[in-house]
């Protein structure tokens, strides 16, 4: 698994959640850049990652997540540890 895989998965999640296809997912994308990316949506994104990769992401860990790159790195680290 690579970061690219996670970005690809998140692309579908974002399309689903925000009903938009024009959001370019990149490392420095943050919630401030996407209308509607709020704490509630963050939970949904997190749950999607947990389910897809069989991991657990804690809210406390999300406190440190500043952008999409951080979230992808966190997910990748947990997923690799799991396997």
């Amino acid at each position, binding site marked *: 698994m690579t970061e690219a895989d996670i970005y690809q998965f998140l692309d579908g999640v974002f399309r689903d959640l925000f009903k938009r296809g024009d959001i370019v997912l990149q490392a420095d994308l943050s*919630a*401030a850049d996407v209308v509607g990316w709020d*704490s*509630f949506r963050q939970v*949904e994104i997190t749950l999607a990652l947990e389910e897809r990769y069989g991991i657990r992401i804690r*809210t*406390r860990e999300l*406190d440190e997540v500043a952008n999409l790159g951080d979230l992808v790195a966190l997910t990748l680290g947990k997923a690799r540890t799991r396997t």
Partner: protein
Amino acid sequence: MQSAALEPIGGLSGVVDRFIRPRTLKGWVINRERRCGGKDITITARLSGRLIGEGRPIAERPDVVDERGYLAGFQLECSEDIPDEAVAFGRLNIDASDPLGATGTLPIYDRERNIALATVLRSAPPMGAEAVSTLLGVIAAKATLTGEAKQALVDLRTRHFSEGGATPKPPPARDPAAEADRQLMMRFESLGADCDLGIVQRSFGAEPLGLLRFSSIRTQELTAALADRLRGVGSPVLTVLSVDNEGEYRTSDRRYGMQAHTFFFEGSVERDELFGQQCKKIAYLARNLLETIEDGEKILVHHMMPNRLSEAQLQALLDAVRAIGPSPLLYVENAVADGQSGTVVLRDNGLLVGYLARVEDKAAQTAQANAEVWRSICRAAVERVSSADAARRQS
């Protein structure tokens, strides 16, 4: 021949069904009696009364008129950018007329108006709760709002209103002092009973995820829920999804009465799907609240205004927390003495008690007005906890 079901006005009917930002309008217009060809109709666009565009139908619109050669579709390239406000609030007027004197006013398609409205709301500058409330009341009365515009209303309310929830994100870290405040606020986790702390955290750019951050729950039920380690919270069997007076879906827990916004309105989302999502979300946040308490690194805050809890209620709540983990508990209540507001005391049983002056001025009774006092309370609480930890280590 087919035509869309629009009432003819002055003999001409039509609609602006597409607004291509910043200055292109597309739509169709017909003379219902076909007294003259569509290409003879003149369409004008006026922005606040000022002429900004003029044109004629140039294309067939088989979806509107199935008569070959009848030109009904138009595209106006306006001379000025058209603000979304103008589209949303009716300052853009599109009129049509033909050489035989027939006239008509072309409405802007609801979808386009809703998109424009959503855009306006999402970029609205900060405004007071009263203004937002008035705006919401006016707009919500419109039956034509689509899910997108309704969602924008939710976003607006959460950005400006005390019930909060769906948040615009904290602005990127500003100066070091602001970042220090944000980090200070991230050290606290709301345990209800209201949304005050959550709103104050937002005012400092802190947006921690939390089960009770934007929920309401009574102290007694909170204590019972914690004593039961939040067992079953978020379970579909124990969760109820209902619609409030404003048409918003809310969840509540059958046993503990914990209520939470969903920020989705009736009709804008599939109910069963929403229910499933909300249950998962609540369960996730419940699981994390337990882990947070077990970690002991965050300070839990229970805020109860204007009523004061009895000593027995406080002890029961503290015991319920302690049974889960070592997180300090800060109880915030009304300040009753001069100079007390913004201070925190550490009681012998380990309970932190903070004092907040009650703001009597309703207009000022907002999180923003209390933010400075809350910051003082939070700073004092951290200092008390640090001192207690240091003393414990020394002994």
